């Protein structure tokens, strides 16, 4: 058979990544009756989902009866500057409530309304209080609930197992190849269907809210397997990350602070967001502080505070304030909830923020404002998928969660990520299982394919180039931070391309010390392949999209270009290691949904 040299497992469906999307996919595939494995590069329950704070967006209508899927759909599309895949946005808004209620069946305990139902909180870009939450640790609740459910269902979990390559039989994906972190030994998974749920790419930037796992693995695996990527230039910089001390710069400060009454101020004490209301959102945004403050209690007669404009708008505003010399002492702005809500309320609603600032910055957020600034948080672009089935453009390969693209368009609304994981994690698991059931025979990779992967992965040990993987990583982070950040320009993007090319050369000279057993230097050297791949893809897209939209702002093309770039996805395909780029029209929204955008507010 294919290869007895390495440990080999055979499954119907393998799911790579065990955050919210991966867990939900594995649960669904397993429930469909196919043999399922869940593979993750950390311990189970440690994936980046655990860091999500604010909540899960779903039109449950527990707080506002007026809410429904159409309003959620509209908010999502407008937040994404209409670059979203309309069908994904529709499915997401329609199915999110059921997915949240399902979590409750599996043991999640959300904060409650007075009449005993799931409480919902305000968040940026959402017309009504919509986020089911548990204080400010919603992601922990979600991942633990899914983890325990998966464990009780007896799903096989392979922890600290790092997948490095997808295997193919002709044009189909038929498994994956990687290594155990513990031993450094190689392992092969043969599968009929494979689900990518590997998350994002934030570790290519210097200041990021993302954990170490976010190295663009799935995006790279998919591209190398021949799958389309779209809109890789769409990167979300969350407006509020910690800025001080420097060593914790980038750690997330939940949007829930503003959802629960916090406001942004500059060094002059001004609530500056009132100066950054764009025409696009003017009709639905409060113009005075009085109206903004009244909105928290009465949404019928008041419009939303500009503190809760979508994230791209707020991040750009903070960036501009700091640039204009009105920043806080450490180069951010001030986020003040202390003067606006009681200490008891803050400690109850935002316990983890309270703890985080006290422990890491000696700041008591019930007494003083926080210093915050933009941090690389999320990629809206990624692997192109079919809306209903989460299938990529390669047979046998599915993708869900942050690694997939389309739902969020040019900018993701807060709270729409956790619901994305549940809705499309489930769909990916379901359709991957169906695909596996319908497939006749078991596809199999060629032996030399596996052997070639193994040789490539061992290359850093046999290299005498002397490059340090940590230095290459730091140089990449500086490059992306400085040249492919919130505000971009052609000259800088071109410079980034040159730097990324030279970093690729340096990566080829990386030398790893020691042996294969739990060796972070080696692990990083391998992750750098995918980090550089996504950096290259993002830069290429950013250079091509000559407009400003959502998570992509061009200083040299400051406005949106609705007639050209507003109508297209930028599609990237990789062949023999080289990307090519093309523009393809967005899927056309049906008329009955189009009407939702014509009725004004």
């Amino acid at each position, binding site marked *: 058979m294919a290869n007895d040299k390495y440990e080999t497992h055979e499954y119907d469906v393998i799911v790579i990544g065990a955050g919210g999307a991966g867990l939900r996919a594995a649960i669904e595939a397993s429930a469909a009756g196919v043999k399922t494995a869940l593979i993750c590069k*950390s*311990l189970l*329950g*440690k*994936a*980046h989902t*655990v*860091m999500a704070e604010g909540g899960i967006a779903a039109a449950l209508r527990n707080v506002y009866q007026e809410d429904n899927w159409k309003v959620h759909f509209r908010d999502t599309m407008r937040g994404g500057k209409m670059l979203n895949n309309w069908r994904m946005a529709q499915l997401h808004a329609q199915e999110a409530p059921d997915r949240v*209620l399902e979590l*409750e*069946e*599996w*043991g999640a*305990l959300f*904060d*409650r309304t007075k009449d*005993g*139902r799931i409480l919902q909180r305000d968040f940026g870009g959402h017309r009504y209080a919509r986020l089911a939450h*548990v*204080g400010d*640790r919603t*992601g*922990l*609740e979600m991942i*633990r609930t899914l983890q*325990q459910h998966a*464990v*009780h269902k007896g799903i096989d979990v392979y*922890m600290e197992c790092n997948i490095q390559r997808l295997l193919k039989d002709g044009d189909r994906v038929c498994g994956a190849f990687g290594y155990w972190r*513990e031993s450094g030994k190689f392992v092969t998974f043969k599968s009929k269907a494979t689900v990518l749920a590997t998350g994002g790419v934030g570790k290519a930037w210097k200041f990021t809210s993302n*954990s*170490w*796992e976010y190295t663009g693995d799935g995006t790279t695996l998919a591209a190398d397997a021949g799958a389309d990527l779209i809109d890789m230039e769409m990167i979300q910089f969350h407006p509020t990350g910690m800025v*001080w*001390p*420097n*060593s*914790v710069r980038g*750690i*997330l400060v939940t949007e829930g602070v503003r959802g629960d009454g916090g406001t942004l101020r500059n060094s002059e004490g001004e609530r500056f967001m009132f100066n950054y209301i764009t025409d696009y959102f003017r009709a639905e945004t409060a113009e005075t502080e009085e109206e903004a403050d009244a909105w928290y209690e009465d949404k019928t007669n008041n419009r939303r505070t500009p503190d809760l404009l979508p994230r791209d708008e707020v991040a750009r505003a903070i960036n501009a304030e700091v640039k204009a010399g009105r920043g806080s002492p450490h180069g951010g702005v001030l986020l003040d909830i202390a003067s606006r809500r009681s200490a008891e309320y803050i400690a109850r609603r935002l316990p*983890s923020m309270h*703890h*985080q600032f006290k*422990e*890491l*910055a000696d700041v008591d957020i019930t007494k003083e404002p926080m210093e915050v600034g933009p941090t690389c948080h999320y990629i809206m672009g990624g692997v192109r998928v079919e809306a209903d089935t989460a299938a990529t453009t390669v047979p046998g390969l599915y993708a869900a969660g942050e690694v997939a693209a389309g739902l969020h368009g040019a900018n993701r609304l807060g709270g729409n990520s956790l619901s994305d994981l549940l809705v499309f994690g489930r769909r990916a698991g379901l359709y991957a299982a169906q695909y596996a059931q319908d497939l006749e025979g078991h596809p199999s990779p060629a032996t030399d394919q596996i052997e070639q992967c193994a040789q490539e992965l061992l290359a850093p040990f046999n290299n005498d180039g002397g490059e*340090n993987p*940590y*230095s290459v990583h*730091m140089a990449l982070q500086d490059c992306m931070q400085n040249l492919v950040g919130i505000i971009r320009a052609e000259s800088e993007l071109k410079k980034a391309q040159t730097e990324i090319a030279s970093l690729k050369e340096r990566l080829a000279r990386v030398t*790893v*010390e*020691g*042996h294969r*057993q*739990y*060796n*972070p*230097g*080696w692990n990083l050297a391998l992750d750098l392949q995918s980090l550089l791949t996504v950096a290259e893809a993002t830069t290429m897209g950013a250079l091509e999209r000559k407009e400003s939209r959502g998570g992509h702002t061009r200083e040299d093309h400051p406005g949106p270009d609705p007639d050209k770039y507003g109508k297209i996805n930028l599609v990237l395909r990789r062949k023999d290691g080289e990307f090519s780029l093309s523009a393809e029209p967005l899927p056309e929204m049906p008329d009955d949904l189009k009407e939702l955008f014509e009725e004004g507010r």
Partner: protein
Amino acid sequence: MASEFTMRVWRGDLSGGEFKDYRVEAQEGMVVLDVIHTIQATQAPDLAVRWNCKAGKCGSCSAEINGKPRLLCMTRMNLFEPGETITISPIKTFPLLRDLVTDVSFNYEKAKKIPALKLKAKEADGTRRMYQDDVDRVQEFHKCIECFLCQDVCHVIRDHEDNKPEFAGPRSFVRLASLEMHPLDEEDRREFLKGDAGLGYCNITKCCTEVCPEGIHITDNAIIPLKERVVDAYYDPVVWLMNKLTGK
């Protein structure tokens, strides 16, 4: 604001090893994990450490700092005097893999055995109703980030390897308490608690509570109420009282 420290870090695996000293400069605001990362980047690229979020939310970077179980990412360097030698060793209760990384599969195996949630029927209107006052006490247990520091410090297994098969440990008790106290749960786990989980081994010294980075009152709010449930079910209170009084 930078200060120099000597970091004495355990290097080795099950076949042996030793503490090695690294001189490192710590910048203002740094935590121990930052310093470990500095050592990796500049002096020991293959130094093994497990970490994920570096924000105290995932519970991956558990270790013993000067002998005390802590999260590397939530321990500020300004706790120490400049020039001080700081000893970093892997958590002791679980088998060493390499350097600061241990095999914590014990905890995942124990989790598999816990009887799952069993919810009672929905309300007549098809909804689930639970009130904040009732979920508050369970939400405390749901704060657990599974850093396993409570398991590490628990002397029942820290000092007695042979107790491991019969004892589930504080982390499991917190999970069991969260299920037992779920407002809508109807499963009965008392036999499991008394038997497989080995709740009786715990003699409430509160070491687990002291090291919990989430401040969960493990002993008072989870373990003691569980013990009370087991006692109520299995020990006739009259006989128990008589024994107490007669000193048996």
